[in-house]
């Protein structure tokens, strides 16, 4: 069902945990749907110095969180913003079709965390075109 890459990131997730004095935090998902993802950012000079995550969800959700945090660590906020869920899934050697939405969560959580940082800095939040991440069921037969 899952690629070796997914299983590796699931069994040995990178960047799990909490950044106590994070300057950007984003949480998406809904416990009702069985998936919540929370991303902590430590941003310095527009660069993501550190990133951590916590996830309540399936194997794909945890592996996507792990991979996504790996992919944005050390990147600029713009680069991080442009990371798509597809890129996350590809980096994991693919996800089963019914699990693609779990990678959407990662993209959404990163966007939220970045905008949280921007607001804290007194900047305009960027426009996010991912909607309905919090209260919409994603478990369709995609």
């Amino acid at each position, binding site marked *: 069902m899952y690629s070796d890459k997914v299983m590796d990131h699931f069994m040995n997730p990178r960047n*799990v945990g909490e950044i106590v004095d994070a300057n950007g935090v984003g949480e998406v998902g809904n416990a009702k*749907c*069985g998936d*919540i993802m929370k991303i902590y950012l430590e941003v310095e000079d527009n660069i993501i110095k550190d990133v951590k995550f916590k996830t309540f969800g*399936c194997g794909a959700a945890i592996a996507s969180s792990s991979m996504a945090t790996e992919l944005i660590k050390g990147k600029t906020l713009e680069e991080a913003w442009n990371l798509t869920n597809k890129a996350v899934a590809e980096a994991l050697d693919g996800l089963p079709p019914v699990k693609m939405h779990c990678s959407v969560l990662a993209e959404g959580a990163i966007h939220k965390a970045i905008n949280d940082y921007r607001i804290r800095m007194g900047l305009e939040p960027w426009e996010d075109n991912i909607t309905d991440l919090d209260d919409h069921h994603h478990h369709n037969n995609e």
Partner: protein
Amino acid sequence: MEQKRLIYMDHAATTYTKPEVVETMMPFFTEQFGNASSVYTFGRKSKAAVETAREQVAKAIGAKSDEIYFVNGGSEADNWAIKGIAWAHRDKGNHIITTKIEHHAVLHVCEYLENNGFEVTYLSVDENGLIDLDELKRAITDKTILITIMFANNEIGTIQPIAEIGKIARERGIIFHTDAVQAVGNVAIDVEKMNIDLLSLAGHKFYGPKGIGALYIRKGIKIENLIHGGGQERRRRAGTENLPGIVGLGKAIEMATENLEEHNEKIRKMRDRLLNGIMEKIPYTKLNGHPEKRLPGNINVSFKFIEGESLLLMLDQLGICASTGSACSSGSLDPSHVLLAIGLPHEIAHGSLRLSLGDLTTEEDIDYVLEVLPKIVQRLREMSPLYEDFIKKGEN
């Protein structure tokens, strides 16, 4: 975290076929393979084997052998029973009563019938998964033609008061079907004493082969066929008889019911040790299903703050086979309808784990699961934002 041993705790999904059963089946593949419906002696020997198996099945549930019809499995038995009764009795009424916690093989048939002019009442269950007999009585109308209520639930293991339901149905002259796919081999069944009119069973749940099951139909009950064609099974179920399957089913049900109490006692003891250990070692855990009226091998618990599919994956890495009611594992929209019906909030239902013990379970398996499960749950909780919130805010 390396381990190669198989720790099979998914007996409720399917069991292995016992070597004794396979042995009984073997001659019927290559030697005694003749068509049981043929005229010649060679075929009549097959016929005799089929009839012996029919008696074995009948005896195990207190029926007469001419009330047993072989089918392909539990799903076919349920489909036939419910559709067959519905179509044959639609002149008398179009109302069916069932429960919210039936297997999909019953629920989806009921939905199908709803799309075809029938009305279905889905009885609710209490927090232990038991129906309310008064609610059942109130649901009966003069259009009710069928009550179909499962004997024991496949997820939470709760055993319904079948004899009482049978009594109510009989008093009101309504046909009563029970899906006993999980019950056979685990609970003593007597269709006469329990007033059961139709009963579904499947071989692969009690160490018989897959691809074979039976429907018991009380003599005199009118029912339409599901599979039309040749005259097999006294013209009620067409298709060349699955000879090895039938013989294996007979052997397996005989073995399962012969040692029922002894077997249950052994399984129940291991189950209780495992369950108590889990409840002791893992905080924020809820037992799902009835504390006593439950299948001897069934454990169903919810671990707060974590999700079931990731739990299964981690268990799988250690060779432990289990199942969950989380939506994430099935790719469906909602978590288990059974867990929702007993009143679990979605997020608690998502964290459910079913461990179903059986003949393959050893005391070492119990020790092992008790050693690794708490660690895995803890590990997943440490990744969970829900747990983090909970720890920060204190118990709510």
